[in-house]
């Protein structure tokens, strides 16, 4: 038993729903009690889908448990096939149905439904959403892929995009264009938009592009083993990774056409002088392993950030994430415990978080800006505009995404210069974000009596230590712009501790500043 407040991943049957909802002509009969239908709204509300997920829930109740839940399952199966006329169905159980052991697979097999029935065994009490999606897609591919000749022309499949993924819709479009530059047409994209008949055509392709290992790796490995289709190992997120991906595709295909880089803007945007202020910004990354690994490389090499820490919530990717962390000289945090992530962020006090919806809330609480780079995400991260994260346009999009939460370069200088100015003060926030309440300034018209008569506050004690901030140092600290104040405070306290000081004076503050200057 483990106490959980927020979860990064849902149960495995939600992963199966992500595959089923992404596809067309497939129906999922899920043995589940009422209430499990909540999962529909993930797709209809968060992703704004305009169709119900193709899922029939058997909706058994307590009073059915003693009698015949199996019949209920068979009725739901028959009704779904009659009503929705799918090309194939997948059948499985949610966590509760797993306990009553009705064997949906066996039941469906006896029904002579005249269409392929793919049975899912998704252990609800040991695995999670990504596993559920990966396993479901693998079982569908295994069940439906048909032996056939390769096409004469070199074509490939795109594997892994699902419903409720992070920017999957636009990544597919971006990669389709990129591959077209390289002289490769796309045979089938799956699961997103594929029908069971399309799945049957997968073996016609010469190789597979594994877009998201989280949801497509088992299928890619099986296709490699069974049909000799190699799959790409580089996830093309970031400029360098996209170029590596292109080289990988060229090596697989022997084609030599190159990609059009005329719309790639990240390198110049990063080199231009306004971006100087990005140098060494300390960022913390958390999300699914694939996005974190790719984005960490971008953060360091293409944005000039300092990676202060990183981690992932899906243990399946722990090895890859640890390797990247080693390369960056930091410790990897592998956990699905939201509170642990919050603690790590609080301790590291980064200047920006690159994370998921959960980290957005952590950032809100700690006053740290956050850019969302990985599922799980909320409704605002399903943009109307074209917004991939893969390929060259993806790199442009990520540059914007990472700069947006921050104060602009020019503005940062103004904040440093004017500190106590009525417009450039702490609570104002980045000027391109609206909605900050105006702060009443008692001194604005030359200083009110109450403002001048404010008694000095008692010296404050630093958290977790015995160091005392003297009031002049405390006041000076407040003049430091909010986005670097946390770091200044911690650095000063660390400096004081290192010097064995009991009190932090104005001098200590500036000595520490000089000490940490870079």
């Amino acid at each position, binding site marked *: *038993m483990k106490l959980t407040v927020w979860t990064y991943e849902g149960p495995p049957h939600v992963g199966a729903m992500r595959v089923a909802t992404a596809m067309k002509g497939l129906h999922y009969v899920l043995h589940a009690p009422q209430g499990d239908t909540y999962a529909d709204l993930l797709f*209809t509300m968060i992703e704004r889908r305009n169709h119900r997920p193709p899922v029939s829930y058997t909706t058994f109740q307590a009073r059915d448990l003693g009698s015949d839940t199996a019949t209920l399952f068979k009725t739901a199966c028959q009704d779904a096939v009659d009503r929705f006329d799918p090309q194939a169905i997948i059948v499985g159980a949610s966590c*509760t149905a797993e306990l009553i052991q009705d064997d949906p697979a066996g039941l469906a097999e006896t029904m002579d439904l005249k269409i392929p029935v793919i049975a899912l065994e998704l252990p609800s009490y040991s695995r999670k959403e990504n596993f559920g999606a990966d396993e479901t897609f693998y079982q569908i591919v295994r069940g439906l892929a048909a032996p056939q000749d390769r096409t004469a022309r070199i074509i490939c499949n795109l594997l892994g995009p699902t419903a409720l993924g992070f920017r999957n819709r636009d990544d597919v479009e971006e990669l389709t264009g990129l591959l077209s530059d390289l002289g490769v047409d796309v045979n089938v994209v799956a699961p997103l938009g594929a029908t069971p008949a399309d799945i049957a055509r997968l073996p016609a392709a010469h190789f597979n592009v594994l877009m998201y290992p989280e949801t497509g790796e088992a299928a890619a490995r099986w296709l490699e083993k069974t049909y000799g289709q190699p799959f790409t190992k580089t996830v093309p997120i970031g400029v360098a990774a996209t170029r590596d991906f292109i080289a990988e595709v060229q090596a697989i295909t022997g084609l030599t056409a190159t990609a059009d880089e005329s719309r790639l803007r990240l390198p110049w945007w990063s080199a231009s002088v306004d971006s100087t202020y990005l140098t060494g910004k300390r960022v913390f990354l958390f999300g699914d392993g694939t996005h974190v690994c790719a984005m960490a490389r971008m953060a360091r090499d293409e944005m000039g950030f300092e990676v202060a820490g990183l981690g992932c919530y899906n243990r399946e990717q722990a090895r890859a994430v640890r390797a990247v962390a080693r390369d960056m000289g930091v410790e990897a945090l592998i956990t699905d415990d939201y509170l642990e992530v919050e603690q790590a962020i609080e301790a590291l006090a980064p200047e920006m978080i690159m994370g998921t919806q959960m980290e957005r809330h952590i950032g809100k609480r700690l006053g740290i800006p956050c850019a969302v780079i990985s599922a799980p995400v*909320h409704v605002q991260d399903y943009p109307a505009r074209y917004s991939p994260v893969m390929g060259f346009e993806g790199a442009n999009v990520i540059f914007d995404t990472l700069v947006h939460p921050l104060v602009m370069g020019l503005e940062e200088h103004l904040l440093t210069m004017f500190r106590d100015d009525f417009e450039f003060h702490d609570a104002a926030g980045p000027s391109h974000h609206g909605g900050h309440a105006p702060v009443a300034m008692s001194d604005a018209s030359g200083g009110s009596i109450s403002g001048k008569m404010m008694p000095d506050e008692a010296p404050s004690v630093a958290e977790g230590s015995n160091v005392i901030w003297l009031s002049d140092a405390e006041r000076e600290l407040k003049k430091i712009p909010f986005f670097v104040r946390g770091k200044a405070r911690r650095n000063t306290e660390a400096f004081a501790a290192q010097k064995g000081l009991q009190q932090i004076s104005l001098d200590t503050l500036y000595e520490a500043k000089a000490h940490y200057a870079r």
Partner: protein
Amino acid sequence: MNDLTPTPGGGCRSAPVLKQRGQREVFCGLTGIIWLHRKMQDAFFLVVGSRTCAHLLQSAAGVMIFAEPRFGTAILEEQDLAGMKDAHTELDREVARLLDRRPDIRQLFLVGSCPSEVIKIDLARAAERLTQVHAPHVRVLNYSGSGIETTFTEGEDACLASMVPVLKDTPARELLLVGALPDVVEDQMLSLLGQMGIDNIRLLPARRIDETTAVGANTVFALTQPFLGETHAALMRRGARHIPAPMPFGEEGTTAWLRAVTAEFGVDDATFDAVTAAPRARARKAIAQAAEHLNGKSIFFFPDSQLEIPLARFLTRECGMTAVEVGSPYIHDAIHGPDLDLLPAGPQISEGQDVDLQLDRVRAARPDLTVCGLGLANPLEAEGLTTKWAIELVFTPVHFYEQAGDLASLFSRPIRRKSVLRVEAAE
């Protein structure tokens, strides 16, 4: 006074009810935790369940916004199921850890889920044991919010019903008002009753455990929510008497509810009118503004929260709408009866759901407004229907006079929006 005689053609109380059995597109009772934990400020809700339960709680209302939520899920793992670990020992450990970290918690609810019910973890026994361990600082109770037993708002019902047996006894003649309302609404309600001289009021749930909610043979109680059937029965078992009334939605409903309650305490018409005249006038005016867009329009309710019948009564009688179908997950005559009496005859009343068959009916009827859950709203919009998400009706302050206009607006806004948008979908 309003004319509360049923409209010509009679009400709907004896109308035939369509009962179907099939897929139900509804939340389970765990969902109630989302508002209950905000209402009871010293309570923690610990669901004993699966990852699905935790995922539901964070997804159901898009509520991943609370800094310090006072709910969590003790997720059952394989070892718990295989009997390799004793569930009770595990639970004791998790509870001890939780209470240690959160000394502000004074009452803990162990909430049963589908998996905990199926594997028969005895949470009543656990609650008893844990109460002994953690008393007097923390009281531990249990109820089931499982989907195999409860539908959406029945979770609140089960929670409140679990509190009834431990309420203190009182011989005093007191009024007990039952149902979780937003504080602002609760204060308005107490103020109205106070102005009419009714001060000896207790609330269930109270905002904090230390407040002195009690019950006894001289207690009379009124429900402010229409989904409290079990709580109603539990209070009757304690000897309390129910004041049947229409639910306090809209000007007419609020007036009828207040009149039923105040009549019990002998408040005369003059006092009643003096206190209610101004808020009634305000409510009527506010409703009239929103009703402009609702008048003459048809409405179809999918079953969701059991608020459907009283809301249909409000919309038909005070906003000029016509109900096509009024679906409710469950209908309790003792609670829904007064509203059914007032609901003009005509609509199909339905209880329970086979969602595919009901979708066939809504497509055939093409009502001007469809009230449904979040899973159905966008798909129906895409088919050209105008929808109102039902969950907002549960989360928004909508009771009593000052919210009557807001309540009407919740229904008029989707219709107004459709009329102001001048852009065709692509494709």
